[in-house]
């Protein structure tokens, strides 16, 4: 086969060569290098201008979208949105570049402009542009169409775009959290399964509260949830489809099954099954319904969690006396203990990024949330106190959500914290809340 380059290809090739030659001459003289090693991390100053309404009726949704984006970026701790009262320029045409000088004056590095328009077919069109004030370049620009009810999702998607463009990492705003909603007095607590956006909006209840539910877990690839429910008999592991509302028991075997979690491809569920005084880990294929035993020890093995590539499993076991974290291959066998510090460790969960394992640590009279590298090194406590438990990672592995019980008569509530240990924030929920589990990105 003969390779015949088109005119366009030749030109682009020549341009590339020219650029290469340009860089070569630029560095031919080997200029003196001056190292700039410091540079503190500071939240990026960003100005989010109100989304301009396409028609007079779109003012409200435009402001709503602006609000959600501002809130998302601010809560991430990586951005410092500038108060709109400080803005000098009032944007009327989001298609034109902003007056950079007036934005530079208020010390912002980036400007977000946008427009919301209700179209003839009733659908909502959202457009946005992200501008760099210093280089005067457009860094991102996108438009979306959706049904009017999903305007919040649009705002989350735009937030993710901005986050990804300016941090170099995937965002996590367009995601949801399933948790156990708790109402009523301490003695007669009603526990319902609930679903909400990651920022606490759009709460939906998935169960009625007649039965006790525990440990809901999102599938990393599908919109399904697995959880444990105490019905009439032994507690059982259930599978719940968020979109269809369908519910089914995972397997039907004697004894108690608990602490379920999905495999990364969403095709299997790994869980604990009670056998006498002990419990062992089993994995069940959701299609063939076949069960495979992974551990066989006279101890309590529980809380298994897959690595994102599905090759390894971390879990909690008291085979050494106290509960500790172990890692083994996905097919079982060769488990190695990775937690060696003071105290006992439980509820390990592998980060979707693969770099860390989050855990609950009990010791020194406190329950703490922490992370460690997958070989057990670099342990870092993110939150500590009377009772912190049940860590779950954001889809990008940058944020950990957990629940905290303050003690006394008050109930638990949800918190997020950056994996650096900074920026701890309470997540708004309608009532008490525990056992959160973060979904993958929706889009």
């Amino acid at each position: 086969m003969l390779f015949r380059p088109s005119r366009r290809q030749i030109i682009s090739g020549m341009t590339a060569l020219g650029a290469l030659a340009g860089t070569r001459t630029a560095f031919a003289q080997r200029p003196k290098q001056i190292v700039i090693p410091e540079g503190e991390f500071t939240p990026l100053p960003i100005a989010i201008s109100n989304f301009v309404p396409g028609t007079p009726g779109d003012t409200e949704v435009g402001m709503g979208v602006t609000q959600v984006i501002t809130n998302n970026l601010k809560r991430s701790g990586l951005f410092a949105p500038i108060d709109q009262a400080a803005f000098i320029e009032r944007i009327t045409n989001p298609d034109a570049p902003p007056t950079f000088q007036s934005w530079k004056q208020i010390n912002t590095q980036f400007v977000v402009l946008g427009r919301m328009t209700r179209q003839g077919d009733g659908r909502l069109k959202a457009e946005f542009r992200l501008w760099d004030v210093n280089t005067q370049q457009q860094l991102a620009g996108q438009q979306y169409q959706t049904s009017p009810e999903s305007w919040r999702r649009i705002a989350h998607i735009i937030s993710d775009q901005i986050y990804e463009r300016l941090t170099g990492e995937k965002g996590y705003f367009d995601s949801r959290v399933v948790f156990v909603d708790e109402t009523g007095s301490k003695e007669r607590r009603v526990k319902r399964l609930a679903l909400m956006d990651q920022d606490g909006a759009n709460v939906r209840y998935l169960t009625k509260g007649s039965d006790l539910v525990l440990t809901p877990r999102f599938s990393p690839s599908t919109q399904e949830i697995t959880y444990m429910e105490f019905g009439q008999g032994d507690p059982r592991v259930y599978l719940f489809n968020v979109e269809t509302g369908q519910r089914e028991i995972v397997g039907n075997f004697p004894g108690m099954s608990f602490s379920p979690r999905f495999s990364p491809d969403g095709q299997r569920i790994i869980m604990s099954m009670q056998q006498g005084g002990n419990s062992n880990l089993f994995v069940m294929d959701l299609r063939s319904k076949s069960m495979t035993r992974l551990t066989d020890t006279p101890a309590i093995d529980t809380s298994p969690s897959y690595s994102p590539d599905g090759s390894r499993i971390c879990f909690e076991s008291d085979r050494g006396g106290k509960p500790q974290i172990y890692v083994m291959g996905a097919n079982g066998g060769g488990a190695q203990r990775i937690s060696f510090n003071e105290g006992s460790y439980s509820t390990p969960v592998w980060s979707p990024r693969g770099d860390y394992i989050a855990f609950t640590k009990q010791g020194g009279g406190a329950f703490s949330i922490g992370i460690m590298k997958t070989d057990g090194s670099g342990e870092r406590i993110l939150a500590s106190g009377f009772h912190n438990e049940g860590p779950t990672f954001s889809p990008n592995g940058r944020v950990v959500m957990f629940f905290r019980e303050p003690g006394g008569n008050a109930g638990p509530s949800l918190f997020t914290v950056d994996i650096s240990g900074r920026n701890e924030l309470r997540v708004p929920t309608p009532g008490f809340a525990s056992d959160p589990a973060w979904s993958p990105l929706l889009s």
Partner: protein
Amino acid sequence: MASVALHVIVLGAVMLSFSTRALEMPAEDSVPVDVISEDNLAKAMAGMKTGKKENPKPLVEKVAEVKPMDDAVGKISEKPPVVTETAPKPLPKVEEKPVEKKPDPPKVVEKPKEEPPKEEPKPVEKKPDPVKPDPIAEAIKKEEKKPPPKPVQAAKPPEPQKPRIVERHFDQSQIAALLDKRDPTRQAATGQTMNSNAALGLSKGTAADNSATWGSMFQRQVERCWKKPYGGIESQRPEAVFAIRLRRDGTLEGNPVPEGVPATPFLKVYQESAYRAILECQPYKLPEAMYEEWKYFAPVFKEKV
């Protein structure tokens, strides 16, 4: 009570007067410090054969003065008796010559054109050597005439009797008189015309490197604008290198030229953040005297190790 009140007043006054004073950072001295390898040093010293032939002025701290020659002759003739008694005499002569020459050799040897200025100091300095009186003889004289410390005065004919007495008799109280009172051998570099600046860079050597000075000034200024992205703890030791050209007023002559294409989205964002910082923080205030050094250089943004 009164003393308590007094203490309170005094302490309060002290605290106030201290707190109102602004803390000022002392200006940093320009100290070019750089660690270089032996190899680099050898290269720097070797110079460049192809370098432009320049005729730099030698360092001259004072204009050489011509000293009288008559005395010397007369004095030398009188010396012999003293010479035999003390060993140190031959030493000063040997010592002084190389010491006097030291400041000159590098410049003089390389520059044949420089001969005239060099020749002059030589005779001037050589001649005084013989003139210089024997330390002991001088010491003795000083004992008698305490006020005049100048060696020139030693040239006056000594009295023959005194030296003999001193030879034999060691008097502890006179040790001070035995001290060497000659002028220090390190003398100001002399020449025909004054030039208080040592030549900084010659075309035959490498230029003076003051990058430690202006580099740290640039670093402090650009860091104020650098909002680096937060890549978590495990971020992959990012580094962004640019080549930038600055005008004399500290503004950028053109946009910074990034070196290399970032391999990951994070590295791209990292490079962009540094690029933004360079643009945002101009103009840079750097010492104008070193403009030749900072008009073109490569800032390297990296994580502190």
